[in-house]
């Protein structure tokens, strides 16, 4: 049992000071900017909620929001089942195989984000790339620059390459925390492999999986540098996601509108985090109810 002691605050203060300095203070500063027209930073002109009104009434915002949601939905529906499946296969494998696969699959996680699109553009280059030449040889008419579907496929495959390792590692951590006694009990009951997955493994993985869902959702929802470098939102705006709109405004030094957009996006992040917290704590409450 934890003891209640407000002196523990003293231990948390150093961490909070830094988080305040690099997280909260900048947000406060930028909230201030979001209500002003800043031709230059020294010359503010109060415009009230104009920038916000422009964002929430523009069709482009909702189109980008829709594309970002679709992208996240595709990413989650591919990476989550695939990652869990690989983790399940690993669980029944030899120790050596497990560590080899885990090392391999986490390598893309350590590649700096601006190099990932570079590696992939090189890989799918029709003249020099391994995959590009393969596709040219197969004569599928692959053209990621002008065919929207192909750009989407490149982004989804690249993102899966980049992030599958995270889902596998988290899933595997969840699975390997299950005591052997659970499986023995299931075997005595004659449970099928599906039942073992559905009623033992999946519930035991919930904590790590919910973290995987949250991280994967947020990072794919706000995918920026990777998507930008592949096709700069093209062809014809087909891959213009939320963050690319923001990046464009920052690059153009439109401080006011960019500030308002940052705040809008931050509010979206907070909503997602709050929903996630509400959902997971509701589930914990239900679980506590059942276990009584």
């Amino acid at each position: 049992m934890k003891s209640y002691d407000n002196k523990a605050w003293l231990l948390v203060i150093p961490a909070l000071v830094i988080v305040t300095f690099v997280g909260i203070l900048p947000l406060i500063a930028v909230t201030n900017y979001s209500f002003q027209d800043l031709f230059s930073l020294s010359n503010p002109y109060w415009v009230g909620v104009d920038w916000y009104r422009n964002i929430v009434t523009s069709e482009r915002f909702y189109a980008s929001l829709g594309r970002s949601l679709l992208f996240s939905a595709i990413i989650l529906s591919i990476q989550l089942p695939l990652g869990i499946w690989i983790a399940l296969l690993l669980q029944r494998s030899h120790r050596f195989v497990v560590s080899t696969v885990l090392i391999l699959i986490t390598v893309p996680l350590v590649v700096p984000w601006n190099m990932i699109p570079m590696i992939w553009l090189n890989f799918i280059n029709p003249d020099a790339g391994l995959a590009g030449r393969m596709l040219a040889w197969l004569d599928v008419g692959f053209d990621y620059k002008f065919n929207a579907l192909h750009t989407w496929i490149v982004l989804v495959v690249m993102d899966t390459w980049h992030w599958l390792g995270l889902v596998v590692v988290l899933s595997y951590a969840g699975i390997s925390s299950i005591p052997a006694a659970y499986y023995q009990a299931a075997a005595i009951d004659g449970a099928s492999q599906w039942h073992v997955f559905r009623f033992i493994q999946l519930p035991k993985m919930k904590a790590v999986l919910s973290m995987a869902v949250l991280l994967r959702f947020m990072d794919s929802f706000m995918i920026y540098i990777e998507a930008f470098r592949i096709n700069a939102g093209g062809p014809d705006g087909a891959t213009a996601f939320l963050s690319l709109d923001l990046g464009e405004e920052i690059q153009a030094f439109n401080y006011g509108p960019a500030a308002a957009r940052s705040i809008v996006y931050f509010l979206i992040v907070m909503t997602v985090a709050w929903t996630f917290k509400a959902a997971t704590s509701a589930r914990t409450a239900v679980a506590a109810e059942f276990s009584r």
Partner: protein
Amino acid sequence: MRSLSSAGRIAIFAMVGAFVLLPLLQTIIVSFVSTIPRAGIAEGHFSLVNYQNILHSAVLKEAILNSFIYVVLNVALCLGVGLPAAYAFARYGFVGDRQIFFLLLIFRITPTVVLSLPIFVLFSQIGLENNPVGIALVHCVFNIPISIWILESFISAIPREFDETAFLDGHSLPSFFVRHLIPAVAPGIGVTAFFCFIFSWVEVVLARILTTTGGKPITMAINALFGFRTDLGLVMAMTVVAIVPGVAMIYFVRNHLAKGFVIRT
């Protein structure tokens, strides 16, 4: 759900491995090829010239140094403030503990592009731009939450009696941390350092906006290599250099990667 045979599983793992390795393989191959016309080396032939060029370039060497400075500083900061905070969360309840945990969650998942303008505005006003220290500080926004989560789960796994015995022996809190807690959670510190290193090493949006004119890390030095006539071989050689430390880190923590560290929310 049918059970896959051992051979079937190996075949699937081989496919996964090929999927991961093929794009990297291409990068490694190109890094050993001379990709622009040079005296003495035929274009498109095997050569170590790209790696030699890195060693001869003061700019690129400085970028590698900058990257290491900011990453090491960031990991040290996150561990230094993360360990006491994690201990507080693991052992005590206090006013606002859940709210702080939620705040940390928010900052962990906030994509860096959302914070890039606010941070750029603040840091350029207080003169922390174009400096590895600025990047090290900024990356704390997502790495402090990570370090607190991971360390908290490791500390929670230690029974409370462990602390109480040490305090009865007359240890003060700082001496308990140094003599008992840190050795006991050493694997947790390793895992934390690994994740902080990785997330800081790969981040480019904040790193870019803070180093427009100087203090560039490896990632930004690579961006600067693109131009009218890009030496793709050199770019790929730098990319390989940028991946190697991460791979080394993976190798060091390979046994802990899979062990359960449960992240509390």
